[in-house]
């Protein structure tokens, strides 16, 4: 019985780590958005305010999948849904 719970705990920890691989996606996406925003600001410095708010908006949407992964990882780490 102790073995079972140990295996479940270990698998939950590994699963949490694997879930956070999803962090790559938002990282690439937000970096790309920020890079394009820098290009846009350097081309048209007077439109800086609009560009920044649009970029933040896009970054937030891109971040959603990362947040989902984070919630899954947190659930696996701290809530123990499989009853270890």
């Amino acid at each position, binding site marked *: 019985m102790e073995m079972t719970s140990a295996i479940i705990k270990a698998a939950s920890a590994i699963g949490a780590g694997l879930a956070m691989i999803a962090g790559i996606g938002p990282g690439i996406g937000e970096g790309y958005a920020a890079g394009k925003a820098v290009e846009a600001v350097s081309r048209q410095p007077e439109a800086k305010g609009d560009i920044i708010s649009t970029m*933040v*908006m896009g970054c*937030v949407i891109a*971040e*959603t999948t990362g*947040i*989902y992964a*984070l*919630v899954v990882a*947190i659930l696996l780490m*701290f809530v123990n849904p499989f009853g270890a």
Partner: protein
Amino acid sequence: MDGIKILYTFELPYLGQVVITETVRNSFIVVLLILALCLILTHKMEKIPRKMTQKAAEKLVLMTEKFVVSNMGSRWRAFTPYIMALFGSSIFGSLISLTSLRSVTADINVTLTWGVVTFIMIHFFSIRQKGVLGDLKGLLEPIPVLLPMNIISELATPVSMGFRHFGNALAGTIISTLIYQALAGLTTLLFGIGIPFLQVGVPAVLSLYFDLFSGVMQAFIFCLLTMIYISNATAEE
């Protein structure tokens, strides 16, 4: 990491068990803070403002109104009070973690409730403008085959809004807890004394990002998304 502490439970007839958690207590503290701030800022208002408090209050209202009008158009000016209330409770709810209380937004019940309120408002305004059939017809666009997808994406709106805010606030809470524990371990490891003096100062720098920046940003984003969803749902063709 500790979960949300349950402070008090009691039984109510017909409603069953009522649980008073840390979140409920801290929410009431936030409500009282905002109420006090409103009362102080609007105390003895005059037609031509001379006091700093009234000037600050007018500035806040005008800033929010500009924010709403620039995102939703001037016919939604009446939306300002709701956005200001949402922004205020979100920002104070996140920043209350600076006083070592647990932040209100690090509880899924709070953020998911705000998400559901937004969802209801989207459909209320959509139905008021287009009628029930007009609102439902939006699910069949652009082609009727996409109906299941559209239903899922409608239901995902409140979930994604709630989880986004909750995830950010909870991640900040967890990271600051981990940092405090790591710094306590580091002091015992390096100097072999039981007083964790490395905990002084170092977490403050990180708290600047995880509590202040992230809290303000998420409050801003939640209001922005609410406004964009509602003005999209009622866009005139």
